[in-house]
């Protein structure tokens, strides 16, 4: 079962940019950007995050969610209440560094625990 990522940001551009950056280092990994509100504003969308997670889990992936700021965490936690918790994990960490480190870890075959640890990007900020 391969690991895929949903990058959640208040900004659609930021989510998309983080996906591009992480994809460059992890060519075989699936990413979805869930940034901004449904009408293109700044914020996060329960529906956008939920449908990205559903699409990836239905394709057989384990899904890792990464976020930018506190209220994105809350929206993700609300989504986690209604999806299969065994294959979906929220991994807190600094978004840009965490996404790249976690994506590379997934690319080289790391499991969920290893990816979650990498997402904290501890080495970078030590």
């Amino acid at each position, binding site marked *: 079962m391969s690991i895929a990522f949903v990058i959640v940001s*208040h900004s659609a551009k930021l989510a998309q940019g983080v996906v591009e950056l992480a994809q460059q280092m992890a060519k075989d990994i699936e990413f979805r950007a869930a940034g*901004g*509100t*449904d009408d293109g*504003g*700044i*914020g*996060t*969308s*329960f*529906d956008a995050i939920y449908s990205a997670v559903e699409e990836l889990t239905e394709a057989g992936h384990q899904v890792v969610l990464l976020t930018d*700021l*506190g*209220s994105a965490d*809350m*929206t993700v*936690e*609300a989504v986690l209440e209604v999806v299969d918790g065994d294959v979906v994990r929220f991994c807190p960490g600094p978004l840009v560094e965490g996404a790249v480190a976690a994506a590379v870890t997934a690319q080289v075959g790391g499991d969920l625990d290893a990816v979650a640890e990498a997402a904290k990007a501890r080495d970078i900020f030590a």
Partner: protein
Amino acid sequence: MTNLDVEWAKDWMRRSSALLTERRMELIDLDRAIGDGDHGENMARGFTFVVQRIDENPPEDVPGVFKLVAQTLMSKVGGAAGPLYGTAFMRAAKAAEGDLDAASVADICAAALEGIVARGKATTGEKTMVDAWTPAITAARAAAEAGQSPAEALRAAADAAAKGAEETIPMQATKGRASYLGERSIGHQDPGATSTSYLLGAAADAAEAAS
């Protein structure tokens, strides 16, 4: 004593939408002072959608209205208010069994606060909406125990929430983006506590109009 039914719940949402639209700029200004400035816009927009959905597909009971509110706010309100109020109304929907008496008013407020705390992990004194909900529940509970009506319990809750919101002014924020401001967050009223007092005020207005 009139129990609060689905007509009250729908009227509450209409009054909330009107009030939040009217106070939009005030909430925006409060949120600009210590946050990202989106609270007024998000609340007004979220409750406009709520009323639209109630009109399109009227729920049949009180829990049905709360569930519709929860789902709408969760998907339409981009800021922290979406998941916080969304979770609050979801828990309130689970706690409400049908029409509400004064004791159930206190129960649904307590369930709402549990949801907010589960989601936001805040406690009293941190300059958040928890500082409005907590005294509101105590007041509603006291009114219910004194044998007052559901409308009186809601008015007591709304007044306590408004006072709780005012008391956030001297607090320093330690949760959310306002906490980045440190001591500079002191001297401003918290926008989430303020919108909580407006919501409970609208609930009391609707209850008084129905009784």
